């Protein structure tokens, strides 16, 4: 639960991202504004869900936070992480900041080198950020991280293609935890997984948030996932946050028409919390 007295670990103010449109030889094109005036705070041990349809700018925000936007993007506004202005950082300082913010992507297969063993995949952040540590310490930290994510050391010498989708996503989370981040950005981490595997990953993220005090920015379009995991929700449409609030309040009584539309499109509302269909005159 959020303790509002706590200081936000990540704070975004008036974030604006635009891309130059491809101009012709004789005409200039106006820039495309993909993220407009977005502001939110992320607190330790809490999960903030960013929801909205594809193309609404969710992933662009994640990339903006991580400094992974292409050169052509124009970014303005303020991103403050642990008191530092992320957008003003460069070089060595940015590298240090990246240890503090880690990311897990949707497709675990696509975010791992198929030729590397799990040990080296999980250990790579250490090779980059803490290359001075001893081999024994490296092994120990890899082991710890895998254990936290529910994987045994039996996986160390395997290759990504020998793992199931859920195991691969655990490896991605283990890798993200290697630099002991304070912020974990999850871009639809369970969209490609089966529902029972999704349940395991959501439980894992919930445990990590509690045990490590991890702040999590969770990008999704699944409202059921939002209900289970998020403390706070921001609903985005065409690059803007149209409504935000505590998850329970927003899901129970959405105010903005777009939030209502999004919630009304959720399939299976006739299923109760055990998942069973509720007998009603309409479906009997």
């Amino acid at each position, binding site marked *: 639960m959020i303790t509002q007295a706590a200081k936000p670990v990540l704070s975004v103010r008036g974030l604006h991202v635009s891309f130059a449109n491809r101009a012709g030889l004789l005409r200039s094109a106006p820039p495309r504004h993909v993220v407009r005036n977005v502001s939110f705070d992320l607190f330790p041990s809490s999960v903030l869900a960013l929801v909205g349809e594809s193309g609404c700018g969710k992933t662009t925000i994640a990339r903006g936070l991580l400094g992974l936007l292409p050169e052509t993007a124009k970014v303005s506004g303020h991103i403050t992480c642990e008191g530092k202005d992320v957008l003003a950082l460069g070089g060595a300082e940015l590298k240090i900041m990246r240890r503090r913010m880690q990311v897990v992507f949707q497709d675990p297969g696509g975010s791992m080198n198929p030729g590397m063993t799990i040990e080296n995949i999980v250990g790579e952040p250490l090779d980059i950020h803490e290359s001075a540590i001893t081999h024994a310490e490296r092994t120990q930290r890899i082991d710890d991280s895998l254990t936290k994510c529910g994987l045994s050391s039996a996986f160390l010498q395997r290759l990504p293609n020998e793992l199931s989708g859920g195991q691969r996503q655990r490896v991605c989370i283990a890798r993200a935890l290697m630099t002991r981040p304070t912020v974990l950005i999850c871009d639809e981490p369970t969209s490609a997984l089966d529902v029972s595997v999704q349940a395991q990953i959501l439980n894992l993220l919930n445990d990590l948030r509690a045990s490590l005090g991890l702040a999590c920015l969770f990008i999704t*379009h699944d409202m059921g996932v939002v209900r289970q995991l998020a403390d706070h929700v921001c609903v985005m449409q065409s690059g803007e946050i149209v409504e935000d609030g505590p998850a329970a309040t927003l899901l129970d009584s959405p105010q903005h028409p777009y939030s209502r539309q999004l919630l009304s*499109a959720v*399939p*299976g509302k006739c*299923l*109760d919390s*055990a*998942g069973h269909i509720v007998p009603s005159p309409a479906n009997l």
Partner: protein
Amino acid sequence: MNTGAMSAERPVLSVTGLAVSFSGGAARGRGGAGSGTRVAAVGEASWGVHAGQMLAIVGESGSGKSVTALAAMGLLPRGARVDEGEIRLRTWGRDWELCRAGAEEMRQVRGKHLAMIFQEPMTSLNPVMAVGEQIEEVIRLHRPEMKRNVREAAMEALSAVKIDEPARRLKQFPHELSGGMRQRVMIAMAVASQPAVLLADEPTTALDVTVQARILELLGELRSQRGMAVVLITHDLGVVADHADVTCVMFGGRVLEFGRTREVLARPVHPYTRALLACRPSVQRRVERLATVGELIGAEGKSSMMAQGERLAMWWPFAAAPSGCGDDDAPVLVQVEQERWAAVWGTEAAQRLRVKEAPQLR
């Protein structure tokens, strides 16, 4: 022969006792299994779907739901083969057995009477052809009577899937369309030949909820207007609850449960179905911890069922076999009550009750 009566009583597409295997060993590289070994992907899959009906096949990845559909289309990948069973398509007064149909016969059926759409529309569309040309190709091939007005037929196909300004869209290329629009184009192509059955393999998994809702609504309209049967392959039980008439739950290549959707979801007989329903994150209420299939099955694996006075143990791959039944005894599909079918351990009693015909509900 009274074909009208026949089509009303018998399912338009039925799968009976289907078993499909893949050549194994070589693909894994390490491990050293010989190339002669075969891996069973589907065993004893049986289901039927009637005209105008939506049958949902639910299961996790690797449950064999797509393989069954690919077998019906005659599109199994290299190394896969149908070992047993049959797939029958009954339409236009004809009765095809698709597992044994020749290549030429399959060419007449595939795309014409039996069409399929896939999860990722971008990979199924030709990126260097305007969508109009791609739709026209289908019409030229399968509806020769429309030869003189192919363009109009293509426009009509786009209007049928509710695409605005069809004339302009026909000239566009796949990359110029949004994900939802591309999936509509795929559906337009699939239904342009007015097939009797549409196999839809996770058609909305890659789409947003709002777009998903519209696509599913569209599939619902197409089947009620044209009497087309839809076989919806999905892992989303919410979608199943809202749209499917009949539900078939698959696991490990087996049909675990078959029945009317409202019955299956209100009162699942198989523990796996119960587990699958319970681990779905609900949008209404937060739970302390989501259940997982593994945990639930551990507790419920040994449930049983009365069928025609016989107590039968539910089959579950990770549960111990009941006494009098070897661990290797294949499960069988039996009718466990009125309008309900489930997989049970293949004991002697179960073998006697084993279904001969594909389960189907009018």
